[in-house]
């Protein structure tokens, strides 16, 4: 196995174990891993951005291919840096105005179309279906999202939740029943979201533990076992040292 793969496995194992020590208590090993994560992420982002944006998208097309039209976005983008010069800080507003203007112009029509119109179109569904002979039919299956029964559930859910967030009318009498129904729908939605979140977090734990199991094999030099021993020994040493420095009760 190549050295860089084994080295990578040792680094990944060590950092995973250091991060997991936080479940026991906050400690310097966790801090090291946390700071490394932030530092490496920022360093990687800077290098990749410089390589992609400055070199590949600006320098090479301009200098090698003579596409000098790129000077326009380059100048507008550079105006952002004017914020660091107090006397010229106003010039950065031109760049920000450009970004906000273009961003809004691009996003607003598309977002209205995709999130509002399309979703309304899907929400407003017929409560009964027309058969080919002209008669009406009603499907009762709760498991089929397109059934008529589910269209009614959807209608009740949308109306009651919208009413719950309508604060201009006091929620009393029949209004209270509708608002309570809205809360019920919201609770079910939050429950589903929480369930999925738990599943996602457990998946992350499964991913890390799978890697730790893989890296405990002899081809990786039993990285997990060695680093687990080092981590536990270090934690014990830190705890002993802290006890020694703590003032007596």
């Amino acid at each position: 196995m190549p050295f860089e793969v084994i080295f990578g496995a040792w680094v990944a194992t060590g950092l995973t174990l250091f991060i997991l020590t936080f479940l026991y208590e906050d400690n310097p090993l966790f801090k090291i891993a946390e700071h490394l994560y932030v530092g490496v992420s920022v360093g990687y982002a800077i290098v990749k951005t410089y390589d992609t944006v400055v070199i590949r998208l600006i320098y090479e097309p301009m200098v090698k291919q003579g596409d000098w039209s790129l000077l326009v976005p380059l100048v507008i983008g550079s105006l952002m840096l004017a914020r660091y010069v107090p006397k010229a800080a106003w010039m950065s507003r031109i760049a920000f105005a450009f970004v906000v203007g273009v961003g809004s112009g691009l996003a607003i029509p598309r977002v209205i179309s995709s999130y509002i119109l399309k979703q309304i179109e899907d929400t407003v569904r017929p409560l009964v279906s027309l058969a080919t002979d002209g008669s009406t039919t009603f499907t009762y299956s709760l498991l089929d999202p397109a059934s008529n029964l589910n269209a009614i559930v959807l209608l009740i859910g949308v109306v009651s939740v919208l009413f719950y967030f309508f604060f201009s009318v006091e929620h009393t009498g029949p209004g209270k029943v509708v608002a309570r129904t809205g809360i019920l729908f919201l609770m079910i939605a939050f429950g589903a979201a929480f369930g999925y979140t738990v599943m996602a977090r457990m998946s992350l734990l499964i991913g890390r533990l799978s890697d730790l199991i893989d890296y405990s094999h002899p081809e990786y030099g039993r990285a997990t076992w060695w680093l687990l021993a080092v981590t536990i020994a270090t934690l014990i040493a830190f705890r002993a040292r802290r006890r020694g420095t703590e003032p007596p009760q």
Partner: protein
Amino acid sequence: MSLAERMLSIDRRIIFLMIGLCTLIPLLYPVGLAIKVSPEVKSVYDYIESLPAGSVFLLSLDFDPASKPELYPQAVALMRHAFKKNLRVIGMTLWLPGTGMANEVVSRIAREEGKVAGKDYVFLGWSPGGGSVIINMGQDLYKAFPTDYNNQPTRDLAVLNGVQSLRDVNYVVSLAAGTTGIETWYVFGKDKYKFELGGGCTGVIAPGLYPLLRSGQINGLIGGLRGAAEYEVLIGKKGKAVAGMDAQSATHFAIILLVILCNVFYFSIRTSGKTAGQH
């Protein structure tokens, strides 16, 4: 102090240890619980299955290493399926921190499936802008990505023959850990350039994407590690996702048990408190 009170004030590290063991033991000794394929995952599979050889499949790996356990197995399964169907694969990412990992998964799976870079697949890398990149690709793919990740001019690549913009792409799947991701691909891509779009996502953002699935804005959704396991079952190549399903079930069972126990202890304390108050 009663048993219920003691249990409710238990050291949380014991719970961490319990969850850790519930995850670790099934990983070491798998049971092989059955995995049922959901219709939303099957839709993605069926669409790729229906594409003729040589069709263009774009996989956007819009996630970073923090979401690797959930989305990496999805990427592996999708790439294997696309290569098995002899599709022309375009890999890319809208997430800067995930660039290296995305390149690694695309090139590794291609190598394992005997595919050649530039001829059977290309990894375009990352370009800044999120939605703007998609719009740019919809107008001219070569302006958005003049070179691929390995700095090869994209116009010279055989894999992109006949592909001028997103309109020439048969199927796009975005594997997303948040925004920029599936919604961005829909809003700035599918809605305008009319290609078919599927999605894969982390469990956290899955509930927010079901409205898009129901309205037909995306044709399928692979949700979390569970979705990846279902896709592995469909392609008949069980990998890390299937291996993790026993652990997932065990931890879910443990969490449900803990929630029930906590409620039982809570209500028993409340009931005993009321009884004591009456006396």
